[in-house]
């Protein structure tokens, strides 16, 4: 297992260049009818170190899936850059974009929907090879497909079957096999286990961990399930209404969450222990997520934040180091009991 980066006063840049470095990513959608924009992602910056899994956590409207799609160029980013293999992903076009796809792949939330119902498993998994390794002949392709099938825990007998014949967990294995055929550097996982049965989630989570080690993958793990994120991720980014609230290592986030939203999220997760659950006094976070069409001024979380003050409505908080984490909150030090420094 890769070791998490050491906690320091401010997260220092990692010695090796990160696999992915996103700066100020913004994605905006035109809303038909309304004359306003829907700002799905607003100035999000983060990096993914080599061999690391960065979790992106948020509820609906947080923009987490949009980030995944913007990186894969399935939707257009309005602004920002994403440095990957020495080039800006968001600026590539044509043949260079196509070449980049070999190194950047995605697995989707709904495993069955992400497989072409008319193609057999063999065809689905082979397709990346047909596109990017035209030199391989049929036998060589088949050999690679069989090897990958084995790695994801499927059998050769599955090759001639069709997606609808599989359970959700197996379909996700097929999706993973397809994504890894070209041995990408970075794997974006868009809620890879949310749609799976409870008893299958841990299987696939284990599989992803094993494969990450085996292939030396860097991963972007998008989820709303904090428990899954705790198991699968080294560092975590918390999103709310398209803005970053907190970035922290796993230990820091779960032991000392700095942002009020992170704290509320952690408190909202049902605890699988009846005694603890009933003893818990904290009232759930009130209010609702504001409409992305009309985000609150200043800090977008202020409408639900128990600690909101006058500054929060005026000024958008910048992401700055507080303790071992990066937090976008004006008052984070007050809760942490830490001295406010220049940041």
């Amino acid at each position: 297992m890769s070791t998490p980066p050491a906690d320091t006063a401010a997260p220092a840049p990692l010695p090796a260049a990160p696999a992915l470095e996103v700066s100020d990513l913004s994605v905006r959608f035109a809303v038909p009818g309304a004359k306003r924009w829907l700002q799905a992602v607003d100035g999000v910056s983060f990096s993914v170190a080599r061999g690391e899994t960065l979790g992106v956590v948020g509820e609906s409207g947080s923009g987490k899936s949009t980030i995944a799609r913007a990186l894969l160029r399935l939707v257009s980013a309005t602004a920002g850059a994403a440095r990957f293999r020495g080039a800006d992903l968001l600026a590539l076009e044509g043949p260079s974009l196509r070449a980049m796809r070999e190194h950047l792949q995605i697995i989707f939330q709904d495993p069955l929907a992400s497989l072409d119902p008319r193609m057999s498993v063999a065809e689905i998994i082979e397709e990346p090879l047909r596109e990017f390794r035209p030199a391989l002949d049929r036998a060589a392709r088949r050999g690679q497909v069989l090897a990958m099938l084995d790695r994801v825990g499927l059998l050769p007998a599955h090759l001639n079957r069709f997606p609808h014949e599989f359970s959700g967990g197996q379909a996700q294995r097929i999706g993973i096999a397809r994504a890894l055929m070209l041995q990408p550097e970075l794997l974006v996982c868009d809620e890879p286990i949310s749609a799976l049965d409870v008893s299958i989630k841990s299987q696939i989570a284990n599989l992803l961990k094993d494969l990450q080690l085996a292939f030396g993958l860097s991963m972007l793990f998008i989820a709303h399930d904090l428990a899954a994120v705790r198991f699968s991720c080294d560092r975590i980014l918390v999103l709310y209404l398209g803005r970053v609230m907190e970035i922290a290592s796993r230990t820091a986030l779960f032991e000392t969450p700095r942002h009020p939203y992170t704290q509320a999220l952690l408190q909202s997760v049902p605890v699988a222990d009846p005694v603890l659950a009933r003893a818990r006094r904290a009232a759930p976070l009130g209010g609702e997520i504001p409409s992305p069409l009309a985000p609150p001024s200043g800090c977008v979380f202020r409408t639900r934040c128990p600690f909101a003050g006058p500054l929060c409505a005026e000024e958008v908080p910048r992401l700055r180091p507080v303790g071992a984490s990066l937090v976008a909150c004006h008052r984070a030090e007050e809760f942490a009991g830490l001295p406010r420094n220049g940041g």
Partner: protein
Amino acid sequence: MSAALLAIRDLRVTYRTEAGGLHAVDGVNVDLAPGEFLGVVGESGSGKTQLLLAMLGLNAPGARIEGSIRYRGQELVGAGERVLGCLRGARIAMIFQDPMTALNPYLTIGTQLTEGMRHHQGASRAAARRRALELLDAVHIPEPERRFAQHPHELSGGMRQRIVIAMALICEPDILLADEPTTALDVTVQAQILALLRELRARTRAAIVLVTHDLGVIAEVADRVLVMYAGRVVEQAGVQRLFEHASHPYTEGLRRSIVPLAGPLPARLPSIGGNPPNPAELPPGCPFAPRCAYAFDRCGAAPPPLAPVAPGHLRACYYDGPLGRIR
């Protein structure tokens, strides 16, 4: 000891397919006491939703229902539409998973809220409106009068689910059936809705049957738990007992695959191997056997009966030894 509000005996829900009978629910026995919060936990193919639907006769047209469901002594299986129609909404109410589709997009909230009361109790518009406003307050909807004239699409998911709950409670039913009421909601909203359900149960003394796949939700709200697998109940116990002394391999597997939010983290998650059962193609014997770490030859012969291991704690398993074998 109060008589059971709902007494279910040997309930079977079967669908006919080309391949033979599909037993969505395969012999369930359970009693529901007044004011009790019963949690039903299971995955796909467990039959938990079919069980709930059977209580109101809402299964799909091709379903054959056998066995007995007695509500206050009155038999519901085979009862005609008239009898069931009088009960639905009035004495036994249901809330569904997706608040987006549970509400009619063309009708105002007010119309949908008062519909039940006016139909079942013949209430006047004014009386129904008053009661509806009371309920909107009880489910903590801000500005209730304004909501009356609004349509579902103008409200958020959490608010829609509250409205659905209000609609269910308007005729003061004895039993509230909830089919994964928080699965489609954000986790912060889920926490609100669960708190609301707890509060409402304390105020109205209605019994609640909540179906979910999430053991955490069960731990938060349920008094007693049914664990279902492939249409059968495999374990039944009080909630604390279930979490401390789960004695069925499936329950143990589910519990151990939950990632704790604090404390030590395993390098590998203990997981149940195999795939969820296909109700159309169940093996003879215990349906969980193909995935069970403790299975032995007896398990393949016939499905184990539900038998007590302690007062109030039942399980369906032949294996007698200790659990805790790591996979």
